[in-house]
């Protein structure tokens, strides 16, 4: 097979194809090709894949442990910097390449009860159970459908013309920056649906129950990072506390940036509920491609983004192991191009800039 050279940058077309861009036959054909890719991966899962996730988990725990031990000597500036860096990376790996993907059930096929979507609790203020609802069940099914996918602006930002403008959006660059810094708390409150409550959409009792769950989880997260580990350091508790806070901040800003790049760069479109009324499984595949954007880069970038740099592949196959996304990406891209579907990608700085531009633009009417 001839090597296909792909450009590193593909911007979303300014007039993006809607779900009606392909004929019904083409949609079905595209769906069949995607099913074939899925089947090939499922048939070839084995020991090497299991070894991969175990290696990542092992490395993450070693890094976490090393970072926390080093921080106990955080009174010395080099130790503080080294410990905080290790802990930040460990927290990013845990949330992105491990937690998010395990909770999708990407590793359920291993039947290891400790690496399983039904048991994994991640190092994040958001309870896993609520994440699986708001993310797996709502966002991945209703991807970019305004009014259904609450990840379109997170109930806080206007990122599409389909959302009516309001003067409050004028300050949204500030909201976005604050949200990125406090991202885990935004994620934690996501499924409580405060926005829905204020607009009278959600049941109060349900929200109260979910809020109590968030409080329980948040307490354990706070005790760990801001009480228990600083206490271990005794009189030198302050560097540990500051190191932990910095690691949480670094993880928040990094994951928010990566996640914003998944669906908001350039002219990646949103959809209306009417667009998806008649959609079948194959149509759902098409919408995942049109509504997602990749980040191009090397292996380290893919690892640190939890392979959300392969957002398109992830949205097509949210339950396939993330280590396989780079492998299927060329075939997915070639297929998209053959069907005339946009395969949006770009470097991390470029995508971040593009998202920022969109947030500023949409702040205005």
């Amino acid at each position, binding site marked *: 097979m001839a090597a296909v050279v792909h450009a590193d940058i593909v911007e979303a077309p300014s007039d993006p194809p809607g779900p009606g861009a392909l004929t019904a036959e083409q949609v079905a054909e595209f769906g069949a090709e995607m*099913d074939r890719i*899925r*089947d090939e991966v*499922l048939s070839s*899962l*084995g*020991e*090497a*894949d*299991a*070894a991969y996730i175990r290696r990542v988990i*092992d490395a993450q*725990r*070693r890094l976490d*442990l090393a970072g926390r031990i080093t921080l106990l000597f955080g009174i010395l500036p080099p130790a503080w910097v080294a410990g905080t860096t290790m802990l930040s990376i460990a927290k990013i790996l845990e949330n992105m390449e491990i937690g998010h993907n395990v909770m*999708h*059930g990407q590793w*359920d*096929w*291993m*039947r*290891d*009860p*400790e690496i*399983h*979507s*039904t*048991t994994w*609790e*991640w*190092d994040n203020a958001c309870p896993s159970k609520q994440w*699986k*609802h708001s993310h*797996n*069940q709502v966002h*991945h*099914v209703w991807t970019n459908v305004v009014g259904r996918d609450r990840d379109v602006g997170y109930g806080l930002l206007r990122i599409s013309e389909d959302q009516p403008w309001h003067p409050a959006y004028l300050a949204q660059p500030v909201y976005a920056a604050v949200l990125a810094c406090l991202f885990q708390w935004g994620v934690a409150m996501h499924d409580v649906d405060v926005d829905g409550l204020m607009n009278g959409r959600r049941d109060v009792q349900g929200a109260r129950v979910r809020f109590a769950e968030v409080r329980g989880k948040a307490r*354990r*997260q706070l*005790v*760990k990072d801001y*009480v*228990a*580990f600083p206490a*271990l350091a005794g009189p030198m508790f302050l560097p540990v506390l500051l190191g932990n806070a910095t690691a949480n901040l670094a993880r928040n800003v990094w994951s928010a940036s990566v996640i914003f790049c998944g669906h908001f760069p350039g002219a990646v479109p949103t959809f209306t509920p009417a667009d998806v009324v008649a959609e079948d*499984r194959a149509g*759902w595949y098409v919408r995942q491609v049109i509504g997602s954007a990749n980040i191009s880069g090397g292996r380290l970038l893919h690892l640190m983004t939890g392979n959300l740099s392969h957002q398109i592949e992830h949205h097509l196959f*949210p*339950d396939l192991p993330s280590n396989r996304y780079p492998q299927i990406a060329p075939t997915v891209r070639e297929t998209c191009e053959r069907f005339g579907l946009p395969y949006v990608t770009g470097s991390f700085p470029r995508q971040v800039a593009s998202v920022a531009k969109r947030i500023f633009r949409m702040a205005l009417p």
Partner: protein
Amino acid sequence: MSTLALRRAGSPIAPITDLARTVRILPDRLAAALRWPAPPGAYRRLLDPRADGLDVRATIEAVIPETEHAATVVLRPGRGWRPHHPGQWASVGVDVDGVRHHRCYSITSPPVDRGTIAAGRGTLTITVQSVPDGKVSKHLVHDARPGDVVSLDGPHGELTLHDRTDPTAPVLFITGGSGITPVISMLRAVDLGLIDLGAGESRHDDSGRSDHGRSDATDVVLVHHAPDAASALFSDEIDAISRRRPGIRRHLIETGPGAPPPDLALSAARLDGLCPDWRRRETWVCGPRQLVDAATEVWEDPRHRTLATLHVERFTPAATPTADADGGDVRFSASGRLASSDGTTTLLELAEAEGLNPLSGCRMGVCRRCVVPLRSGTVRDLRDGRSTCEAGTHIQICVTTAVGDVDIEL
């Protein structure tokens, strides 16, 4: 709080024990707070692969070939493993091609005391006979290597010598194939003097042990079935034991090759020939279904006037996919409901029609919110036609249907 405790207990000791309790649980509480949200044992396993967490683990010490198709696997369990009684089995979780499979194996080693295990010096053995298409047995016999980690659940099982109805009755073991594995653990324990299988007047040994080689009243007959002498497990060892303890006698019935072997039929006449007093022996039978069924039939036949109890244990073969059955009975075992499947309705729809309200999400196989463990039977994924029959697998009920009879944990 301490004054309250004082008043309630009416004793000055109470606040002190309260404090002692707090101090005692403090390390555990602190460890849990520091470890959160990783599962128990997550960090200890970085150093010790046998550390216990959600499960008990063991490492493989050695794999010793027994016959062409069988091997003894020596396992060193970590903390959390309880000593077994001879005759009990463990469910061993083995990763084959990245997928965890659980299989039950009788523990063939004699018992080890708790202290030895706690000190990390105890081992236990299982003896595995590789069966055709047996993923796990083939892996353990041919591919497992020292250092591999397995998960252990157990020990379990009632086929032990603890529930002898008549401790004075002589003993008969009837075994077939790897059905000898629970019995060898018992015989090894008898050989070591850990168990007394003496017949006649019941003897009590103050030390709890009788010396090796001492002439004792052990009276045990073993009737073992195997295709041929070469594939009979533990023959040399049992012969050596019976030289030390002449009260132990072994008979081998060569059943010939094939599955099922042609000569597994057990009859009163055959037993009369091998062991004339079999009717008054308390008997344990373990082996393939045909053998156990034949023994049960003999013992239940009123004409034979058997006087002692028959203890049985059947092998349950590993699940094989049901062929092309469409639909079947679906049992929701957590709720006790039953439904009938036509092979096209999803298990989620069936459960809802039964009035159950299982957690579900997208109903298209994307979000995996509806996964529940399969207990038995075969299910098919409607998206790609893949079928699953391994008990314990979490299946997506929104996109799977029953192939034959199915039991799911709902």
